[in-house]
């Protein structure tokens, strides 16, 4: 919270009291009572909200194992038996496997591209003084607060004229372009915090600028790249607006679009159980990855706002 620019903030030490400084114990019983009442009250509120967050997710998991009749008849009843066929039907017939593959390709390509291009631009903007530096920096930063939908109308025709509409590589290029503002913003601040002496030493030893960047600076910037990488991964994996406009070919659909498409098509067929299986299938890998990499994910997602 200091005004100095710091590296990606680490989330609060979990479960630790706010402080370790011991206060002298204070006697009066009034305070103790207030403390207890507050404790019960805050636990109550916190548990209620935790329940409200978890219930819809559990409900979805439960529903994905039920048959259609009981989904409609009694939404909260437990499944009579585990209908795993919902899952296999969603995976094969409802194209979930294609949606997963498309999403992996698009996100994989754009994540790598975003990190490479973003760190190149950020490095130059953070470390070199040249006319127009501030202008280019603010040009990138400005992209964060502009409503993307405004640009999407002409962008559709730009992309169309280049023959990139409804292609995976076209979508990758657009994802990269729209991920650059935050990535450049974050990494510029990060590169500024890195010590200059190491790079100067390498340079004196005869390394070129680009060699210094790839072999010295990038490895040093790894924590920043991980934070901004997680941020971009989740943003691109969950992206809905860009593909809805630029990627309308049913065969190229990404996961989020595919699920919305499923909601329509399975709705006609009355195959709600298959749809819920698809939803849960899309939900679980991200939730599992989050639970495993909890610290890094939180640090990555809150990195920008804490600056």
């Amino acid at each position: 919270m200091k005004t100095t620019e710091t590296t990606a903030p680490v989330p609060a030490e979990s479960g630790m009291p706010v402080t370790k400084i011991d206060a002298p114990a204070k006697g009066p019983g009034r305070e103790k009572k207030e403390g207890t009442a507050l404790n019960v009250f805050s636990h109550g509120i916190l548990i209620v909200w935790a329940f409200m967050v978890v219930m819809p997710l559990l409900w979805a998991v439960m529903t994905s194992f039920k048959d259609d009749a009981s989904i409609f008849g009694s939404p909260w009843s437990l499944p009579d038996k585990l209908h795993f066929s919902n899952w296999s039907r969603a995976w094969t017939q409802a194209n979930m496997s294609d949606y997963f593959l498309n999403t992996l390709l698009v996100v994989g390509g754009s994540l790598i591209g975003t990190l490479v291009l973003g760190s190149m631009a950020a490095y130059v903007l953070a470390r070199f003084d040249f006319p127009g530096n501030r202008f280019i920096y603010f040009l990138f930063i400005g992209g964060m607060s502009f409503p993307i939908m405004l640009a999407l109308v002409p962008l559709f025709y730009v992309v169309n004229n280049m023959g990139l509409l409804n292609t995976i590589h076209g979508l990758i290029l657009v994802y990269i372009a729209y991920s650059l503002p935050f990535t450049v913003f974050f990494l510029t601040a990060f590169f500024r915090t890195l010590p200059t002496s190491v790079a100067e030493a390498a340079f004196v030893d005869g390394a070129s600028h680009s060699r210094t960047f790839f072999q010295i600076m990038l490895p040093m910037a790894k924590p920043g790249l991980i934070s901004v990488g997680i941020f971009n991964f989740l943003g691109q994996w969950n992206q809905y607006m860009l593909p809805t406009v630029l990627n309308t070919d049913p065969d190229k659909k990404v996961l989020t679009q595919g699920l919305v498409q499923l909601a329509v098509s399975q709705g006609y067929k009355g195959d709600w159980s298959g749809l819920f299986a698809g939803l849960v299938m899309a939900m679980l890998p991200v939730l599992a990855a989050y639970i495993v990499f909890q610290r890094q994910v939180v640090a990555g997602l809150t990195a920008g706002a804490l600056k």
Partner: protein
Amino acid sequence: MQHGKYRFIVGFLAAPLGLYALFVVWPFIQSIYYSFTDWTGLSPEFKMVGFDNYERMLDDDIFWKSLQHSLFFALLLPLVTIGFALFLAFMINVGGRRRKGGPAITGVRGSSFYKIVYFFPQVLSIAIVALLFAFAYNPDSGAINSILRGIGLDSVQPLWLGDPNLALWAVMAVIVWSTVGFFVVLFSAGMASIPADLYEAALLDGAGRATTFFRITLPLLWDTVQSGWVYMGILALGAESFAVVHIMTTGPGGPDYSTTVMVLYVYQKAFRDGQAAYATTIGVALLIVTLAFAAVVMRLGRRERLEF
């Protein structure tokens, strides 16, 4: 060396800047230009029409509805979400039971558990969340009305997304549900870095919990709250509201335009009705609203920066 330096700068900036200019900057400039034309988007021909689109927009009832809903989102959603998140974060960080000889304030037991759970919706796509709630809101077989029946409220069976008076609230509740956790975690990290002696001193002076919140926590957290406010407002005007309204509501934007928002209206005019020029006009209005919102929040929120 100078020569090598500039070659390096150009070489490194060319690709990212070129891509950014082509796909982001150029379309923004174009769309402002198109808002003064009669371009349909379907054919390449168009001519300049001056302010015709803007005049049409001011007479368009649906535009006014969407503007009203978007403003409502931008004002109410950050207020509710951030207010509730601050409350939860405060409970997590200072709501703990005092242990004898322990610090004056402590976090509740299991605080890391709460933070993990609250963050769940944040990692899910808003599209998945919207689909899930669209089913939960189903009046006949949805989870919510089923609970109401279960607790004996058979007469209270709202149509939720089908009721023009309720649909907007139902949509907003989904956005709140999915974003509160992010801010709880964000504010918790900020609160944990506030030195405890400040609380100690205040409590010694006889301040209550509410006073410590408004006199210590909130002022010291102000920068984070403010940037969170802008972030939430931009989401509420843009991508987040588009996904939720587009996926959940009938129409989309219905019933009877009760949930239409500016970002959705731009999309529909451009890609459904073949009125690209008019769509960019509404887009320009959305741009003005977004920038004005950010400027007002930054301006009203300006305070002495507190160092600690």
